[in-house]
C-alpha cells in the first residue's frame, strides 16, 4: 500500500501542476462569497437607514429565520434528511441565550462582548443537542426519521412546562439585551441596531454555509443524498456525513433561535411549537429545496405572509372574534395549500422556477442578437 502511494505522486505531479487553475478557482469561490456577503452587508446597512423602524425589525426577524431555514436547507435539501424538529433546536438556542444573558445581567456584567458570547454558547448547546439527535437520525430513514423528529418537536416545548422551575413554564424567560453602543450616537434607533446584529450574525453563518456547500463536505452531503450505496462504495462514511450535516444544521438553527430570542427579548415555549417546525420545513420547500437562495425566499415568506394576511383581514369589515380567528389561521391555511401545490406542481420551489426562467431567457438571448 505504502509502496504504491510512494510510487504514485511523481506520476501525478504533472497532472497536479496542470490542475493549478482549479485551485485558483477554489480560492475565488471564497472570494466570490466574501464579495457577496460584503455587498449584502452594504445593502442591508443602506436599507436599515432607508426604511422605518418596524420594517427594520421585520427584516431582522427575516434574518433570524434565514439562519434556521438555511440550516434546514443543508440538511433536507443537500443531505436528504427530513427534520421536523428544528423548532425544538431553535428553542434550545433561544433558552441558552436567555440563561446566559440573565446570568450576565445578574452579575452586573456589561460590555459589547457579552452578546456574542451568549450567541456562541447557544450554538454550542444546540450543537450538543443536535449531535445526540443526529447520531440517532443517522440510523433512521424516511418516515422513521420524520416520526422521531416530530416527537422531538412535540416533546421539547412540553419540557419547558414540565420543568417550570428552570424554564418558568408557559410564561418563559425574559432576555435582557443591552442598548446599542453609545458610540453610535444617543438617538440611534434600537430596531436598526437589531437589524445590524441579526444581519451580521446571519451573513456570517450564510458565508460559512455557502463555503461548506462548495467544499469536499458539501459534495459528500450530496453524494449521500443521491445514492447511499454508491457513496459508501466511493469511500464516504455515510453515518459520519449524516451526523455532520445534522450538527451543522442544528448549529445554524440554534443561532436562528437565539437571534429570535434576542429580537423578541423573551423566550416562551409557545413560540417554538410544532407549527414553527412545520413552518420552517414549508419555507424551505416552497423556497426551493437544496438552494441557499431558496432558504432566503422561505424566510421572507415566513415574515411577509402573516403581515399580508393581517392587512387583508383589516381591509374586510369583520366582527372582532371572526377577524381574530382568520388572522391566526389564514396564513397557516395558505402555507398548507402552497406546500401541497408546490410539492405536486413545482418541486423546485420559487428558486427552481426563477432559475428555470433565467435559463430560458439566457437561451433566447443569443438567438435575438444574431
Amino acid at each position, binding site marked *: 500500500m505504502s509502496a504504491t502511494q510512494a510510487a504514485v505522486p511523481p506520476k501525478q505531479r504533472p497532472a497536479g501542476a496542470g490542475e493549478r487553475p482549479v485551485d485558483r478557482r477554489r480560492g475565488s469561490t471564497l472570494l466570490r462569497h466574501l464579495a457577496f456577503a460584503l455587498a449584502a452587508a452594504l445593502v442591508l446597512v443602506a436599507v436599515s437607514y432607508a426604511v422605518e423602524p418596524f420594517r427594520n425589525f421585520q427584516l431582522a426577524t427575516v434574518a433570524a429565520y434565514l439562519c434556521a431555514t438555511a440550516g434546514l436547507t443543508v440538511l*433536507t435539501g443537500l443531505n*436528504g434528511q*427530513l427534520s*421536523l424538529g428544528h423548532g425544538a433546536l431553535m428553542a434550545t438556542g433561544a433558552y441558552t441565550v436567555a440563561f446566559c444573558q440573565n446570568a450576565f445581567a445578574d452579575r452586573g456584567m456589561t460590555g459589547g462582548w457579552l452578546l456574542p458570547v451568549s450567541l456562541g454558547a447557544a450554538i454550542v448547546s444546540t450543537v450538543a443537542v443536535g449531535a445526540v439527535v443526529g447520531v*440517532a437520525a443517522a*440510523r*433512521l*430513514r*424516511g*418516515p*422513521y426519521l*420524520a*416520526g*422521531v423528529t*416530530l*416527537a*422531538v418537536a*412535540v*416533546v421539547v416545548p*412540553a*419540557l419547558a*412546562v*414540565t420543568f417550570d422551575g428552570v424554564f418558568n413554564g408557559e410564561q418563559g424567560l425574559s432576555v435582557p439585551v443591552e442598548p446599542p453602543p453609545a458610540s453610535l450616537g444617543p438617538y440611534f434607533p434600537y430596531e436598526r441596531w437589531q437589524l445590524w446584529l441579526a444581519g451580521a450574525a446571519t451573513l456570517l453563518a450564510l458565508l460559512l454555509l455557502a463555503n461548506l456547500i462548495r467544499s469536499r463536505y458539501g459534495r459528500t452531503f450530496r453524494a449521500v443524498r443521491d445514492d*447511499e*450505496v454508491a457513496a*459508501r*462504495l466511493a469511500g464516504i462514511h455515510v453515518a459520519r456525513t449524516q451526523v455532520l450535516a445534522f450538527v451543522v444544521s442544528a448549529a445554524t438553527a440554534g443561532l436562528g433561535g437565539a437571534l429570535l430570542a434576542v429580537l423578541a427579548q423573551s423566550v416562551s415555549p409557545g413560540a417554538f411549537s*410544532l*407549527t414553527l417546525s*412545520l413552518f420552517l*420545513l*414549508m419555507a424551505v*420547500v416552497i423556497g426551493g429545496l437544496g438552494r441557499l437562495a431558496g432558504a432566503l425566499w422561505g424566510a421572507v415568506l415566513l415574515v411577509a405572509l402573516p403581515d399580508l394576511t393581517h392587512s387583508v383581514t383589516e381591509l374586510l369589515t369583520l366582527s372582532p*372574534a371572526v377577524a381574530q*380567528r*382568520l388572522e*391566526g*389561521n*389564514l*396564513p*397557516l*391555511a395558505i*402555507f*398548507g*395549500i*402552497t*406546500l*401541497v401545490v408546490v*410539492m*405536486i406542481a413545482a*418541486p423546485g420551489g420559487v428558486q427552481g422556477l426563477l432559475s428555470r426562467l433565467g435559463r430560458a431567457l439566457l437561451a433566447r438571448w443569443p438567438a435575438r442578437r444574431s
Partner: protein
Amino acid sequence: MDRFVFLTIDGLSRGAVYAAFALALVLIWRAARVVNFAQGAMAVAAAYVAYTVAAETGSYWLGFVVAIVAGLLLGALVDRAVMRFVDHTSPLNPVIVALGLVLLIQAVLGMLYGSEFRPAEAPFSRSALTVGGIAVLSPYDLFVFAAIGVVVVGLAWMFSRTPVGLRMRAAAFAPEVSRLLGVNVGGMLTLGWALASGVGALAAMLVIPTELGLHPHAMDLVFVSAFTAAVVGGLDSPPGAVVGGLVVGLLLSYVSGYAGSDLTPLAVLVLLLAVLLVRPGGLFAPVVARRV
C-alpha cells in the same frame, strides 16, 4: 395494589385507542408505503363534524356514525385529490405533502371553530365500577374495548376472509400483477385510505372525551404515541400495531400515575428512540437483510 389495577385498566383503555390509531397508520403504510402524518388532523376534522352534528340533533350516536362516515370520505378524498398526484420516488415527498395537509386542516378548523378547547362529553359514565372494593372498569372503558374489538376483528376478518380483502392485499403486495389479473389497484388504494381514515376518526371519537376536549391540535400527542405504537409493533404488522398500542398505553399510564403526567411526552420520545435504535423493524419484524 388498587392503584396498580386502576392504572393498568386505564392504560389498557388508552392503549386500545392507540392501537386503533396505529392500525390506521399501518393500513396506509401497507397499502401505499406512506406514513400518513395527516392522520391526526384528519381524525380531529371528523370529530369536529361529529360534535357539530351531535349538538344540532342532540344525538351522540348520530354524531358517532357521522364521524366514521366523514372519516371514510375524508380519507378517500385525500387519496383521490392529493396523494395520487404526489411523486412517490422520494419518501420525503408524501411526508411533506401530509404535513402541508396538517397545516391546512388545522387552520381551517381553527377558522371555523376557533382555537379554544370545546368540551366533548362521553356517552357513558367515566367513573369506575367497584368490584370487591377495587375500582375496576368504567362503562366508558367497556365501550372503548368493545368498539375497538369490533373494528380489529372486523378488519382482520375482512382482510383474511373476503374477496375485497384479498384484492386489497394483492394490490399492495404486487400492484402490476394484480392489475393484469383485473384488480382495480387504484380503487383498492382509495379504499385503504378511506378505511384507515375511518378507523382514525373512530379513535379520535373515543380518545377526545378522555382528554381536554376538542381542539385543532387535540391529536398531536396521540399521533406521536400511535406512531410510536406502530413502530413498536413494526409498521408492516397489524397485530403488532395492536400489541404496540397496548404496550404504549400501559407504559404511559404507569409513567403518568407514578412519575407525573407531565413526563408522558418524554416517555414516548424515549420509548420511540429506544425501539428504533435497538430494533428498528419493530418487535414483531422478521429479520431482514439490509442492502450493503
